[in-house]
């Protein structure tokens, strides 16, 4: 299982990379493997205010649509427009080019409350 040590993780299989007060969010390698073949991504609108665990984006495979949640409260500042042309970036590069959105956190220190790579790997068992 690939779960980079520099990221934080949610129980919904999202990863978070904090850069200043902005968090970049995507889904984990495990999540993309479970979904397989991402064919469509619905991005959140810029400026959207959200609470932690609000559904903000949708990632769709051939078979199913899966909600993607805001990991923490904040304001959406960007969606990854590259995914509109190539949704499969989520499969091929989930921790890099396959990021989904960026959110300016109300409380950046809250990231410390998310799982680290070790805890997330333990969750997957």
């Amino acid at each position, binding site marked *: 299982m690939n779960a980079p040590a520099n990221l934080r993780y949610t129980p919904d299989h999202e990863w978070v990379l904090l850069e200043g007060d902005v968090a970049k969010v995507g889904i984990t390698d495990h999540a993309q493997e479970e979904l*397989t*073949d991402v*064919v*469509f991504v*619905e991005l959140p609108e810029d400026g959207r205010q959200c609470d932690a665990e609000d559904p903000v984006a*949708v990632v*769709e*495979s*051939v*078979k199913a*649509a899966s909600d993607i949640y805001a990991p923490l409260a904040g304001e959406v500042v960007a969606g990854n427009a590259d995914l*509109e042309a190539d949704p499969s970036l989520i499969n091929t590069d989930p921790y890099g080019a396959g990021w989904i959105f960026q959110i300016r956190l109300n409380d950046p220190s809250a990231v410390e409350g998310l799982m680290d790579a070790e805890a997330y790997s333990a969750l997957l068992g």
Partner: protein
Amino acid sequence: MSDSMTEMIQETPLAALHVELGGKMVPFAGWNMPVQYTSIMDEHAAVREKVGIFDISHMGQFFLTGEGAETWLNTMLTNDVAKLDIGEGQYTLMLNESGGVIDDLIIYRQQEARILLVVNASMIDADYAWLKQHLPEGLTLTNESDVWAGMAVQGPSAPAAFAGLFPDRELPARNGISMWSCEGETLCVCRTGYTGEDGFEFFSSAETGEAWFKRFIDVGAKPCGLGARDSLRLEVCYPLNGSDLSPTRTPLQAGLGFFCSLDKAGGFIGRDVLAQQKEEGLVERLVALKYTGRGAPPRAHYEVFSKEGERLSELTSGVLSPSMREGVALAYLPVSYAKLGTLVDIDVRGRRCEAKVVKKPFYKKP
């Protein structure tokens, strides 16, 4: 005998093999089945371009035997059984008294008075009960669904795969069936499928099913799950009972009039409703809808609206076509909206995606 009325989830003789092959198992129509092994996209492409293999052991097999089998069966099914020579098969439907669809099935005449019926997994018990209820004395109907393992080998290279295992046997012609003895068991092959590709359905005893499935893999067939089976059939507009067909809609509404012989001798259950519908004209029809632009994949139960915002119905099936990368769907629409070229909106989580009524099927071999 199988019993889909209970909550028990059933397993086909190939279940252990699916897990061993990495299949992702999901419940389907009361059965634990692989939805995919590696990826629906890859499995779909394998069938369109080469050859794939699906477990269809969950489907039901009934055998009808006895003097007069044809005459009686003709009253139970829409297509004309009399057209079948020995070794031939046909797609047909079983209707209720109101002309609604109980099930769609394929029947094969194996001998003059021995007919095989292959029915949908979810309908085995209901179909068997319905037929038994009407069965006259002198005819025998047996449910052999648990006796057989079944696999569909589909794709342009399916005949080559068959030749690889059976170099001395010829595949039957389209819709045909042949049965023979091999290594002490009876094998059955039917030149039919549910993908729009050339291919065949192969039945062996439940005990040897796993070995045969592996042999087909060895000659090039890629294991494919229900996900690809659904996307493949939808691209060619083959209906799925329970989704696109229902007890409250007739085959004429579903666009399956070709398989309904209204004039055959003796008639059939539901015939008069169909005849009346034909005379009075249809109120709604199952149409093929294709997105005019990009959008989230259409899925069953998404609502369909007119361009003026009136709710018309909901999708019965939908998928982002793996072959064409376009949203494609089926829905019953009022006939005034069923004309080719008509534009409608599909509601996807509050967003409207425009779609156009197009000709069936969505996908044709290039």
